[in-house]
């Protein structure tokens, strides 16, 4: 859809970390019995990935991934334009099971952070224990005063998801937290 734009349309900030808004990202919330064979099959067929273990994710992340969000909820990451199809496929495959598959792509904003150690930025905003956070672990937490979820690819790369309405707030938070001279030097 040519009319579609992300909340901040690729805004960037450069400090001791580089913060970028990731543009349009496809996201589908699936709530259902995650352990059921039908669910695993449906997810595999919709996105080609296995169901993740608790708190983990499968796939590459943005564009293609399945992230565990709660005992009965996963977040499926896909191309923005594909989200409708993923919802439709899941709904069809799970028609006989109690489930909720819903496109939430536009309810969110996504940022990527690159830094020598991104935990030096995130550690100023989230009370989550970043020292024990494993790469590929989806962490639902908060960023200062709003809800936020994030995962690390490695200690140099993080992806942050927040609600679309607070995209500017979260961008400004990340920008402020990564200003030169503010490296805590902890990690």
């Amino acid at each position, binding site marked *: *859809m040519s*009319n*579609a*734009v*992300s*909340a901040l349309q690729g805004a960037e900030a450069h400090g001791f970390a580089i913060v970028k808004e990731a543009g*349009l990202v496809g996201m589908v*919330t699936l*709530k*259902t019995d995650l352990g059921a064979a039908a669910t695993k099959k449906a997810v595999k067929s919709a996105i080609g990935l296995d169901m993740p273990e608790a708190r983990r994710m499968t796939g590459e992340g943005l564009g293609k991934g399945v992230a565990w969000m709660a005992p*009965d909820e996963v977040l499926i990451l896909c191309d*923005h334009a594909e989200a409708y199809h993923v919802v439709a496929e899941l709904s069809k495959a799970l028609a006989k099971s*109690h*489930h*909720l598959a*819903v*496109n*939430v*792509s*536009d*309810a*969110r904003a996504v940022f990527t952070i690159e830094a020598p150690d991104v935990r030096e930025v995130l*550690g*100023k*905003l*989230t*009370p*989550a*224990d*970043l*020292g*024990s956070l494993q790469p590929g672990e989806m962490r639902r937490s908060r960023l*200062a*005063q*709003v809800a936020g979820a994030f995962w690390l690819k490695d200690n140099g790369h993080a992806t942050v998801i927040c*609600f*679309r*309405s*607070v*995209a*500017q*707030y979260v961008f*400004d*938070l990340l920008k*402020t*937290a990564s*200003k*030169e*001279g*503010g490296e*805590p030097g*902890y990690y």
Partner: protein
Amino acid sequence: MSHRLETHGRLIDRASTVKFTFNGKWLRGHLGDTLASALLANDRMLVGRSFKYHRPRGIVASGGEEPNALVNLGKGDRHEPNQRVTTTELFHDLRATSQNHWPSLEFDVGAINASLSRFLPAGFYYKTFMFPRAFWKHVFEPVIRQSAGLGSAPHPETRDPDRYEHFYAHVDMVVAGGGIAGLISALAAGRAGKRVLLVEQNAHWGGRAPVDGDVIDGKPAGEWVKDAVEQLEKMENVTLRLRTQLSGVYDHGYALAYERISDHLGEEGAPRHRLWRIRAGQIISATGAIERPLSFPGNDKPGVMLASAVRDYIVNYGVTPGDRIVVVTNNDDGYRTALAAHEAGVGVACVVDPRPEVTGALPEQVRALGVPIHAGSAISKVKGLKRVVSVRVQPYAEDDGSYEEISCDAVAMSGGWSPVVHLWSHCGGKLNWDEAQACFSPDPDRPPTNQNGEGFVTCVGAAAGGLRGDVAAASVAARLSALGIDAPAIPVDTPDEAPLAPVWVMPVYAGAKKRSKMWLDFQNDVKVSDVMLAAQEGYESVEHTKRYTTLGMATDQGKLSNINGLAVLAEALDKGIPQVGTTTFRPPYTPISMGAIAGEARGEIFQPLRRTPIHAWHEEQGAYMEPVGHWRRPYCFPQGSESHEDAVKREINATRNSLGLLDASTLGKIIVKGPDAPKFMDMLYTNMMSSLKPGKCRYGLMCNENGFLMDDGVVVRLDEDTFLCHTTSGGADHVHAHMEDWLQCEWWDWQVYTANVTEQWAQIAVVGPNARKLLEKLGGMDVSKDALAFMEMAEGKLGGFDARVFRISFSGELSYEIAVPASQGRAFWDALHEAGAEWNATPYGTEALHVMRAEKGFIMIGDETDGTVIPQDLGLNWAISKKKEDFLGKRGQERTYLASEDRWQLVGLESLDGSVLPDGSYCVARGFNANGQTNVQGRVTSTYYSPTLERGIAMGLVHKGPERMGETVEFNTVDGGRVQAKIVSPVFFDPEGEKQNV
């Protein structure tokens, strides 16, 4: 005079010069100086005035416990009052001014209070300002406000230019204090593989040991410290922070540390302060001890200092407060100051010691140097106004009439040491009274406990009560092994010390006059006589005495005064010190900056601001925005110099006559799906939702379990087991949480999933007689009356946009609310304006929305409801199902008071003169209530000027209102007047609904 020595000064760089100003005068110091040492080096003994009597005040201490030497620091936007000179590191161009005096530090008119001191006793405020009652507001309060405070507060419009931040750290162990005990602890825990954070409030490691000359593990303390820090720096699992104070300990191992990152640099770039928010498995308090002053007459004069501070200044900074020092001490440790002074070539006039026999190793060394020791003696007078000139030495225990005047220019006092038990005590760690050392020590058997009932704070070193170096070091191994951490026993060589004499007042026989010259709290001017007076007046609790006398209530929170004060109280009450107990230790340990507490939350990111996909357009149009929860919504769109009132009128008229557009994206949208969704919906809403057909809309009310109206909105059934619940803008998160609460806690076995998709959709209301024409022009969907009737929804492509079209109306007009994915929201809004130009498509704001709904008599949550209103009060009985067995709120509404006919109920109100009734105005009734207030029988809930009807309209709750149609009642106005209004139907406009139903 106080001056810089030729030798000593292990912390300063003598090659450097740092220029700074004090009260406008340029002075010089060295890198490594504190402001305190630099002031002393420049013979600035007098640095401030006390709070109550404006007594001359000099520097007393050398650390965070300093009560006297507080200054205004910085200028302009960076001005900050009450900064301790002892903890302020000197930097180039530092600007300090002294506080609490007028017109000048040297000559202070307020000092007249001192001569009035007999009229300003303990409890002065309570005794004086009670009567006459009327004096409080006009005389006492203004006078008190004028004289209150020490430093000058920044201008209210000042904006702090610095930046601050928080940082979260999760560690196995945080060690507070980088002295010997802290370093040993960190080394042991680091070697055991623990994640360790070691913080030290000062700019140097090692604490007091390098000054006191302890020999650790065969090495001089300074060398041992250097080695230890080097080892720690190599450990990847250990983080070291100087200038970082563990300020507070909170429940469950949570602790706050206050890092001063760039204060000492005097330049911009880095954040100024960082507040560490720490989750620690174990908190090690290696916070050392604080020396106590002695209470002798004149102990507050500039030049009287703590003995430890005197030797700190000599050893660390090469500065002496005088050329001829008198040491007064009740313990052997005080003799270290005599030794240090002598070694630095500073004259020691004598040592005054109240103990009858003085034979310890340290006193013997002093004696061997030829320094006279006056055993069994006390200081009974200090001469000199703005600095010490001489002291009078008399027998301590009994007055035999003899005395000796000893000239000196500084007095070093030591009343013994108190472990810093603050961190131990913040969460309830208990203390024991240590008779031998005359101090409170942590009781290791009664620690503050965590969620598992286990202690989570461990004191080590002097903070644990080991006031001698060897005992302190030994305590680390013992305490850490209790935590399962092996710490090597590190030998510390330190001379034997004889027991101290617990001396709380000297001399013993001092009368009332002398006791009124013995300062306990230097900052707040609380003296021995004040505490004794409080006891005499019946104050037995130490907490009450504290508040009555203001002992320990100054910015230093009684670090020097508490123990002395409560010992005096105990003596006056003839009780034991442990029976009197301490006051409460509360965080932070020393004041921390407001900026650090706020962290990043200031300016643009003070609080999150929620923006719709169309927000930027509103701002570009110069919309006047109003807060709705964290959202900002356009109140109206003034054009040019148009007033808000006129803008609202124009927007309403354009909408009612042609076409209006509203950004309704903030509307809450929650999906409820599952086999049990219909049953769940019937419980959530007061009306029947399970009977709704797919593709249809129904207005619904949601109550809490008490029956009060909580939220409302249009419910859409998307398919057999999926509902879309629209909520109010501010209520979406709360309603979603409410749903999940019931699903997770009560109806956990119901098969229902919910999702808050509020932000997935941009929602735009297309409203007015030309609404359909606009949608038809965009094309793609059949929006005719037959294809899409009132209260129906359809999904499709509208003008190329993925759209859900709901035919619902909150204005009484022909109206469609169209939801498109948020990413397409702005483009859709632009497309509507472009296509709608021929009908003068007019954006309208929340005020026009409110007025139009009021013209139709539609209620607004938060206006017509306030948490005490039930749907029946609002004439919404039609929306309460009689058929349903149960719904949330049903039983609540059956309570007699709510079920009563005798309630205020919703009606329309028309002022007889056409004016707009005041918002919140009361409908007055006859007579007065028991408080002499006018009786009332109702109130205005919404009131507006209606451009459609060209008059004021209002809705309100009036006692049995609907039964009183046509009756005229009176409403009060702010200026005491009355307005007459007629009770009418709340539906003012198009009661048959003909306009919306076309």
